[in-house]
């Protein structure tokens, strides 16, 4: 425990060279490496989406073959789910922010943290191999029996997803232990920022649900190689069992994706309203409630798959309960805004977008949970739009908002505020232009995943395609704005937003190697703005 000289230098300068980054156990550097990798894959997955949306400009074949089209939406799905949104917020922002927000020197298991980053990279490499091995075309859900046809690209993809799941388990385990055991003196459970509560709820799902994905993927691989017949109906297996296994993980995974975004939204909305968040405990416990309910509702993905009607009814009934904690969050954020001194800085603009998009994403979810309605809407663009309002409109927007919020802490630089606001406006307009028309054409029965469509729906597809161009321009503007700030001299103050959480109040910008020069002692809650007027 001897104090080294470089302990008090900012973490970006303690050591130099590629090797020092690749062997680091510092959670801040690992977080930044996650961030860079995730952004690369976000762009890749986005480009796939851009290409097949351009193809959908007309109902006919334009420049993609049918196989390529199937391959592109599969790659878009797999990359976005397993390489971007699931590891995204916990891996990048959670890693960087969590120890800072609870006043710890590092995560509980720094080496394990590096291991999960390497597993993530290994998974990413396998995903790239799959790309070279042929056309993975099973969709990201790998439904049997189509995915059992010994397509090498699909098999590589299954292995990739297995490793990424393992990485996710280790991250979740690390977070739970850190939150329980490493809090600074005075950091009681109800003084933890809501982002931490959200990461905690997420981590529980990562640890308990992901192993089931692991065994599912193992069984799928074995089934591909040896045809054991657990899932393959031709051999006496049950393909719906595969869907049970898959969704027992993947429904909680939907909450793994979205709950951290709620955490970021809580931070942004409270900080930029300069007001104690309304109903702190309700927001905190609603994250935990979503976790628990999230384990009980997976069957709503299988309403038309051949599941028994009894199970359908139970799952439909239970699914309605997810609306309660979700609505608690939306109402509490809205109430926090009420009579707050709202500052419309760039991160806040993204925070407000989350509120808007999630309301649409959540309510369309309720519509889909109704059994009779779902039989009409299942496998239409309505579903596509619903989960994009959640995964993209809520999670990725919150992620981008979070990057803007913590960027000064990570790099020590402020970005251009005007450009940032302009970009966020483009993102908002672009995103809704892409997905709102899809809600309409889905409700009219336009099926998803098809290469051709009825000419009646062309106008919706065209609006959608125009939207994705606006969205892409907006996202690139935001990215370039952030990267340009790196060319400036470090100019960020320690607490540019006037936030009350530890990482802004105690840690320097950028933080020192072990985060704090001395262990902080916490004396107030995370959002106590009123008392000192901040």
């Amino acid at each position, binding site marked *: *425990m001897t104090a080294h000289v470089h302990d008090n230098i900012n973490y970006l300068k303690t050591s130099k060279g590629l090797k020092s980054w690749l062997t680091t156990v510092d959670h801040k550097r690992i977080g930044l490496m996650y961030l860079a990798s995730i952004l690369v894959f976000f762009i890749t997955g986005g480009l796939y989406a851009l290409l097949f949306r351009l193809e959908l400009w007309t109902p006919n074949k334009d420049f993609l073959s049918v196989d390529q089209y199937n391959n592109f939406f599969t790659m878009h799905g797999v990359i976005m789910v397993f390489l971007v949104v699931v590891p995204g917020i916990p891996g990048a922002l959670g890693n960087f922010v969590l120890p800072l927000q609870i006043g710890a020197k590092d995560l509980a298991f720094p080496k394990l943290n590096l291991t999960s980053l390497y597993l993530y990279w290994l998974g990413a490499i396998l995903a790239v191999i799959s790309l070279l091995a042929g056309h993975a075309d099973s969709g990201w859900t790998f439904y049997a029996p189509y995915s059992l046809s010994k397509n090498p690209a699909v098999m590589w993809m299954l292995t990739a997803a297995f490793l990424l799941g393992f990485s996710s388990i280790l991250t979740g385990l690390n977070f739970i232990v850190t939150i*329980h055991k490493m809090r600074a003196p005075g950091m009681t459970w109800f003084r933890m920022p809501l982002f931490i509560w959200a990461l905690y709820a997420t981590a529980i799902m990562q640890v*308990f649900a992901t192993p*089931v994905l692991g065994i599912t993927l193992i069984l799928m691989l074995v089934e591909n190689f040896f045809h054991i017949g657990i899932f393959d*109906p031709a051999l*006496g*297996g*049950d*393909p*719906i*069992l595969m869907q*049970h296994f898959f969704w*027992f993980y993947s429904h909680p995974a939907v909450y793994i994706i979205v709950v951290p975004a709620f955490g970021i939204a809580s931070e942004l909305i409270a900080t930029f309203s300069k007001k104690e968040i309304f109903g702190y405990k309700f927001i905190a416990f609603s994250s935990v409630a979503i976790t628990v309910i999230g*384990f*009980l509702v*997976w*069957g709503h993905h299988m309403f038309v798959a*051949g*599941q*028994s*009607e*009894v*199970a359908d009814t*139970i*799952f439909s009934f239970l699914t309605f309960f997810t609306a309660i904690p979700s609505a608690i969050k939306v109402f509490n954020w809205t109430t926090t805004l009420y009579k707050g001194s709202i500052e419309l800085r760039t991160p806040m603009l993204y925070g407000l977008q989350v509120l808007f998009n999630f309301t649409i994403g959540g309510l369309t979810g309720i519509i889909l949970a109704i059994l009779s309605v779902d039989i009409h809407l299942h496998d239409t663009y309505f579903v596509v739009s619903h989960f994009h309002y959640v995964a993209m409109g809520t999670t990725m927007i919150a992620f981008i908002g979070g990057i803007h919020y913590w960027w000064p802490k990570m790099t020590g630089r402020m970005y251009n505020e005007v450009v940032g606001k302009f970009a966020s406006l483009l993102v908002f307009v672009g995103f809704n232009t892409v997905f709102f028309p899809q809600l309409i054409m889905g409700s009219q029965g336009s099926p998803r995943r098809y290469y051709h469509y009825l000419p009646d729906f062309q106008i919706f597809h065209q609006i959608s395609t125009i939207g994705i161009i606006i969205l892409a321009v907006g996202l690139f503007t935001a990215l370039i704005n952030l990267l340009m700030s790196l060319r400036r001299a470090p100019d960020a103050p320690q607490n540019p937003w006037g936030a009350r959480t530890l990482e802004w109040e105690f840690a320097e910008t950028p933080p020192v190697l072990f985060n704090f020069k001395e262990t902080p002692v916490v004396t107030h809650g995370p959002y106590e703005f009123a008392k000192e007027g901040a």
Partner: protein
Amino acid sequence: MEHGHDYQPGHTYNFQILGRVYAGLLVLAALMIGFFLMPIERLPIDWLDLHLIKRLLILADAITMVGIIAGFLMGLKYEKTKLNAVIFLSNFAFLTIFLLFVMADIGMRGAMDPSFTKQLNWKSPVTEENNKMQEAPAP
């Protein structure tokens, strides 16, 4: 660093208790095989489903063994922090939910609308015949 602080990690192992636990586990394992070897076919009882009872006995035996292994060999009994036990036991709750809901599907297909299974029957017809043969005489 930690001197002067009378914290001791974990519990102190007691070899006497360990020996008893080991003996107990072996007895339970032997009992399990005993249940399995019970010559129930020879008993003149047909008003009780002896196969079911046999399975339940084996299951109860297995659960007892798991309890002892988790409690003593893993040390769950000695954990001072309740949380570890809660974490460890909650996954059994999740698994029960998983099993129950999966069974609510597979066991009740066609329960409301019998035509349902006809439309979506993954079982091959040959298996169904075998099942019928299976149901008639006990193996």
